């Protein structure tokens, strides 16, 4: 094969702005998303797929709730706590939501510190995020055990439609599993950051590829997604 025409790798071709730029990116070679790494692209596409899973869960729950002929238990009654003699509806859910949204904040700060190569701060912020996540799962466990003690089961409950319990355990359980996996990922990545793996180019245990600080942002994408999904669960399950 004859020698290919060489263009210096440092040179980047000028690209038009706006919609024309979008079209030119998709019409170009090598990459459709010009400044997106493989890992980030993969995470976005995975999250799109995961959106469909949660979407199907929520739609199934909504169709069950709309179709049922027996009364649906009132969420603000069911999820109320007695605190110092006062009857506060949805208080635990409010705290849980607050904790999870705060964790998104610390995650965003961790991403920022990661790109500034501040190993210590990044690791600490990721650990705080993981701690918030674990707190959330802990409170969910408390909520589950409270409901179970009150007689809510996947196949029935004292107040009305059986689908209440089944949807509740299924959707919050699936979301809680996501949070748990997120906490585990956060701990693993935080350890790598702390140890300086991304500065020393240490190779991954499984993949034997060098990691980069970008993995902090990719973990962050997942974390924010799990957070966003909770907002929808909160709106459709607890506030409806």
């Amino acid at each position: 094969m004859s020698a290919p025409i060489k263009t210096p790798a440092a040179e980047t071709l000028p690209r038009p702005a706006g919609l024309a730029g979008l079209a030119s990116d998709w019409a170009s070679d090598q990459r459709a998303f010009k400044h997106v790494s493989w890992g980030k692209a993969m995470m976005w596409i995975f999250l799109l797929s995961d959106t469909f899973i949660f979407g199907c869960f929520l739609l199934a729950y909504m169709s069950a709730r709309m179709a049922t002929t027996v009364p649906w238990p009132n969420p603000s009654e069911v999820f109320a706590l007695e605190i110092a003699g006062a009857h506060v509806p949805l208080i635990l859910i409010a705290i849980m939501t607050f904790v999870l949204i705060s964790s998104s904040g610390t995650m965003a700060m961790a991403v920022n510190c990661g790109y500034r190569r501040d190993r210590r701060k990044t690791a600490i912020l990721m650990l705080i995020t993981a701690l918030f996540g674990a707190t959330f799962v802990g409170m969910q466990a408390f909520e589950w055990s409270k409901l179970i003690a009150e007689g809510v089961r996947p196949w029935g409950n004292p107040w009305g439609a059986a689908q209440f319990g089944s949807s509740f355990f299924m959707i919050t359980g699936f979301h809680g599993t996501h949070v748990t996996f997120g906490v585990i990922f956060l701990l693993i990545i935080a350890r790598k950051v702390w140890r300086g793996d991304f500065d020393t180019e240490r190779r991954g245990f499984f993949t034997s590829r060098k990691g980069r600080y970008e993995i902090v942002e990719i973990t962050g994408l997942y974390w924010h997604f799990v957070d966003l999904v909770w907002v929808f669960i909160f709106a459709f399950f607890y506030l409806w």
Partner: protein
Amino acid sequence: MVDVRSGIGEALPPLEVEDVELYHPHSWWTRYVFSQDAKIIAIQYATTAIAIGMVALVLSWLIRLQLGFPGTFELIDAERYYQFITMHGMIMVIYLLTALFLGGFGNYLIPLMVGARDMVFPYANMLSYWIYLLAVLVLVASFFAPGGPTGAGWTLYPPQAVLSGTPGGKDWGIILMLFSLIIFIIGFTMGGLNYVVTVLQGRARGMTLMRLPLTVWGIFTATVMALLAFPALFVACVMMLFDRLLGTSFFMPAIVEMGEQLQHGGGSPILFQHLFWFFGHPEVYIVALPAFGIVSDLISTHARKNIFGYRMMVWAIVIIGGLSFIVWAHHMYVSGMNPYFGFFFATTTLIIAVPTAIKVYNWVLTLWRGNIHLTLPMLFALAFIVTFVNGGLTGLFLGNVVVDVPLSDTMFVVAHFHMVMGVAPIMVIFGAIYHWYPKITGRMLNEVLGQIHFWVTFIGAYAIFFPMHYVGLVGVPRRYYELGEMAFVADSVHTLNAFISVMALIVGAAQIVFLFNLVWSLRHGRDAGGNPWRATTLEWQTPETPPSHGNWGKELPVVYRWAYDYSVPGAPEDFIPQNQPTPGRLGHEAIS
């Protein structure tokens, strides 16, 4: 003459993607078993898929033996019959066709055709295969579990799927089936993310999306669809598993079983149907689109002519992919729905015929005045066009509500979908194996055995499914263990059924010739050389055949043109490879 599409003279864009760090195996185990090389993973996927497909083939024999000669074989009682049809359908659709097209051909062809060294995440790619294998093993385990596999029909409709009247409903069958599907979806997602990111973000210099071979377009679009459609099946499986194991009532209405009121109540079986078909209809195109793409390349290469209307072909693939998400309820016309919905879904269904017909016209127009070589891949491609048109036309019948209602649940439906998503894609799979086997092994498949395989399979498949339309039109229902004394069933139906069964046995046996050919040619096949079909696409331009680890040796390929420069006027050869800079310099002196 300079080809306007080749962009000669333009400065090449700079290299944007850094060279991948490949995992270099050190032992036999990491090289051939726990391999992270997409080519090995592809062969593992394909071998597993074909192996489990053979099980489904034997099941189809047993089904046909019962239908053709009812009551002759004691082995096939009613329960087993339902288990056989269920497992036959599920294995063929998911564990064979989906896995072979995406996991097999996707893994082998995507990195080679886009000019990459490997998939972007080789480790996840390897996991994808092993999880798929686990799913297959769980599925196989259900054959040996107490009560046997599920007999709910491949659509697994509740409530019958989890009741004691259905084989496996109150035993292990349905549980293992659902677990196997969930595992399959997890494994597929790992592979699917790889295929999508590799196509979007890992192409060679000069390889724009509109220079991709249509094979890659088909597999890519199908993978995107699978990533969006499998979630619905995943959710449906999880919910049914809870209904079966935890006693929830997502899909279970109040129901009396064996004179006993069950604990269930308030669930919606229709909800399952919606979730299932939101997956199930795109699934048809997840199987069909890779076949569309591959057959385009086969026809173009073996007719030595550029594909007619390349851009139209690409957009047709994308539009079919999009439309297939809003047609699912045409599988549910008889389930009961608002007539306006029926109208909507019938309309969208019939609209899909437009891009599909465009594709068929373009295939035929590519053949028109082409230099057609009747090689084995071309024969199978032609067989695909014929069977696909046949199955597509009966699809127009079934897409209309009023025509569908009397035809629903008859053998006409069975004939239709076997023609359109069974026989047609399988024809493409055979053609593709005959086409790419020389690249994968370095040897040609035996031509004589291939001709025997082709003619028996093609004519035999027609002889099976064409009469089946008639059987359905006279009203013979599908999924009936035996017809018994029904006045409307003519004697000719019984004769035809026997004929179909004999043909099914013959066609099935012909596949042994094919398998023998695959093994025999490994050692004894004619040496293929690097590019036996004189094809343009990148996988034929690798420095070694079979391609080595990393595909391209030291230098990544650079792409200068689209994939269809066949018989370009003025060029010294009748094909110009995609990585050939100037058409005039092709030839012996230029290659040296």
